[in-house]
Each structure stands twice: as structure tokens, then as C-alpha cells.
């Protein structure tokens, strides 16, 4: 009986089960194949769980019309298909891991020398991190910083800010985001009679509050025409 090694990438076209004659040899070969299929199923499951949710991997291996006892050839074909699928899935994970590692290196370079990476951006999705947002190299103080070479790495929230809709109504801002929205929009503007325009500076005189009706002086009757 040939002991088959652990499934490796070459297994897809690798060692075949030698032709077996006696019933005992057949049974041993089937047992070996079933054990390999069980191990491959475990490895496929681990790959799927590892990639979730960022990296969906192609892990489907079509089955025969079952559940039924498979023949030796069918078990071999199933084992080979699973091994090939496992290789593809692992390569997908590896590509995603390489992409994330590259993004981390770029972020480190941006943090070390922002001026050499002007307007570069690395998103949280590139880094494999949950949530939205991006690390961006932006000039400090706007155009002043751009000309003076003051650059910094900023982490944007990535979330859309509350803005006034064309109808003039502001969208409701969740309380947790109210501070972020306020700091992003700058100093509060005064309400203007003309929406969209800067408010005029008006000097309001404090007018005395109207006295209650009971304390008002009665108005003098005016001259009446005879």
C-alpha cells in the first residue's frame, strides 16, 4: 500500500493511486482517499473562514449526485478537484495578503516622509481593516502649506458629512458624529435671510420690551373736529 503524502499544490496532477487488485487493497485505498478528502475539507473550510469577509475565495467543488457510496475513480477525482480548489483559494488569500502588506509599507513610508508622498492615499480597505476611510497626505493650512512644504498624513472618516439638501433642510446628523461634522464645517455661520450668502453685519439696537397692556399709558385723545 502506498501512503500518500499531504496534499500539496502538485497533488492536482500528482501521484495517482496505483491500480489495486484485492479487496483489502481496494478498501485500504478507499480509506486513504476518504481520509485525504476529510483533510482537504478541513483545509478548505479554514481558508474560507480566514478570508471572510474581506477576501471571498472560490471554494466550491461540485459534487456527484449523492449522497451515495463513490467508486475509487470518483473518490480520486473528488480528491484532485478539492486539492486544485484549495490551491486556488490559498493563492487568492496570498494575493490579498501581499496587497495588504504592500499597503502597510506604503503607509509607513507616507508617515515617515509625508512630503515625498504628496497627495498619496491608502484606504483602510487596502490595509484589510474594517470600516471606511483613508490615510491621505494633505498640506497643512491649505495652499500655504503646499507652497511651504508642510505636509501631513490625515485619516479621513470616509463617511459622507451631513449637508443641506436642495430643499434647504439639513439631514439629521447622528449625535456621535455631530462633533466631527461641526469641526469639518468650520465656524458656525449665522442664519442669513438669503440662503447661500454671507450674513451682513448688522448692529442691532436693543429695543425695550413692550410693557404689559395694563401698565401702558392711555393714549391721549387727539383733537377732534367739531
Amino acid at each position, binding site marked *: 500500500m502506498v501512503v500518500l503524502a499531504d496534499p500539496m499544490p502538485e497533488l492536482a496532477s500528482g501521484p495517482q493511486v496505483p491500480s489495486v487488485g484485492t479487496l483489502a487493497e481496494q*478498501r485500504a485505498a*478507499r480509506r486513504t482517499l*476518504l481520509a485525504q*478528502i*476529510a483533510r482537504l*475539507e*478541513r483545509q478548505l*473550510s*479554514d481558508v*474560507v*473562514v480566514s478570508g*471572510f*469577509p474581506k477576501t471571498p475565495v472560490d*471554494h*466550491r*467543488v*461540485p*459534487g*456527484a*449526485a*449523492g*449522497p*451515495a*457510496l*463513490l467508486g475509487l475513480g*470518483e473518490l480520486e477525482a*473528488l480528491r484532485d478537484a*478539492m486539492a486544485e480548489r484549495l490551491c486556488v483559494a490559498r493563492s487568492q488569500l496570498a494575493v490579498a495578503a501581499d496587497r495588504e502588506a504592500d499597503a502597510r509599507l506604503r503607509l509607513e513610508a507616507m508617515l515617515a516622509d509625508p512630503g515625498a508622498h504628496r497627495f498619496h492615499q491608502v484606504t483602510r480597505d487596502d490595509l484589510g481593516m474594517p470600516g471606511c476611510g483613508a490615510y491621505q497626505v494633505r498640506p497643512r493650512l491649505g495652499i500655504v502649506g503646499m507652497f511651504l512644504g508642510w505636509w501631513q498624513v490625515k485619516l479621513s472618516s470616509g463617511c459622507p458629512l451631513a449637508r443641506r439638501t436642495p430643499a434647504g433642510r439639513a439631514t439629521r446628523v447622528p449625535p456621535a458624529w455631530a462633533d466631527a461634522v461641526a469641526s469639518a464645517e468650520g465656524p458656525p455661520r449665522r442664519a442669513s435671510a438669503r440662503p447661500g450668502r454671507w450674513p451682513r453685519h448688522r448692529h442691532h439696537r436693543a429695543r425695550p420690551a413692550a410693557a404689559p397692556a395694563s401698565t401702558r399709558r392711555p393714549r391721549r385723545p387727539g383733537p377732534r373736529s367739531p
Partner: protein
Amino acid sequence: MTVDPEPVLAAVDPVVAAELPGLELWELRCEGGDGRTAREVRGRLRDLAGRWSGARAIALRSQPVPHAYRVLLRQLGVDPDETRSPIEQAVLDRLWHGGFKTAGRVADAELLAVVETGVPVLVLDADLVAGELELRTARPGERLGEGELASDLPLGRVVLCDDRGPLAPLFGAAVPDRRATAETVRCRLAATRAPGVPIVHVEEALWTAADAVAIPR
């Protein structure tokens, strides 16, 4: 409720047993029948429904008992991502519907058993099942069910049978004429133990289903 003291081991065809050592069929007899699900069972299903999320559903395949059933399905030529094991299908239905939908005492007993233990249980009418239960492959000419609605069984398909013939495909639903109904008084519960599943899970699944299928007094 009268329950057999211990689950008993039912028969598995020698060819199947030789191919899949560790595959077992366990049986438990109890009193019960179909009807409106007890409030306690509905409450338990409601509590269980709140514990499942998408991430946990994905990670289910790597847990020992669900993984054992996935391996069994794979070894029998079934793609477990297409024809899911009972526990994975139950969790997927929960995600799809937003909860575990109740569908009567029998269906809820089966659902409760599989969700709590991962072991699928089939509830049959004891008076309609002839002889002993057995797990074997389909023979030539056998059909699943009786009458016009019966379907042909491919040769070699693994099925749960009694002395009269196939009752249900492995991990499938029982034929309607053997399933416990509202007229049922005594039930036979059948649980398939995949290789590698601890026996305590199987026993717990059978007792859980027996409790849930009991007619409340």
C-alpha cells in the same frame, strides 16, 4: 411523557459501515405527536435565533460537529455548499428569515435538536414504521414514498429504511406517510451520527427532540 431510558443503536448496512467506519444510526422511542408548539419550545427557539450572526454562520463550518457532517457529505459525493448539512441549512434559514420559523411540534423538535447540538434528528410515527430502522444503500427498483408522489431512488443512494422500504434520504426529510402527524401518539426518533461526533451530542439531540415533541398536558 414516556421515553426509553437510553438511545439504542440501530443497524447500519455492513457495506456502508465498512466504507464509513464511525457512521452510526441511533434511535429513541417516546410519546408525542404533531400539533401546536409548546410555548417553552418557541421561547427557546427565539433565544437561539438571537445568537446567530453572519460571521458565526460562516465560522460554523470549522466547528467540530458541523464539520464532521460536512466531511460526511463530501465523502458521499455531495457538495456541502450546495446541499447543506441540516445544521448549516437551519442557520442559513435563520439568517434569511430573521429568526427560526416555527412549523409545528414535530418540525420544531427537529429544528431545536439540530440547532442546539448540530445532530440532525428525524421524528417518525412509531405505528407507521415497520420493523427496525436501518441505514443502507438503495436497492434496484426502490422508490421513496408510495403512490403517485413517490420518486425513484438512484442505485446506491444512502437512505434510512425500515422493513417496508426507504423512509428518507440521508439528512433529508421523511416521506409524509411515515412522518409523525397530529394523530401520532408514539414517536420513533432517529439520529445519524457522523464519524467523529461525540455520542453525548447524539444523546442530547434525541432527548431534546423527545422533550419538544411531547404532547403538553
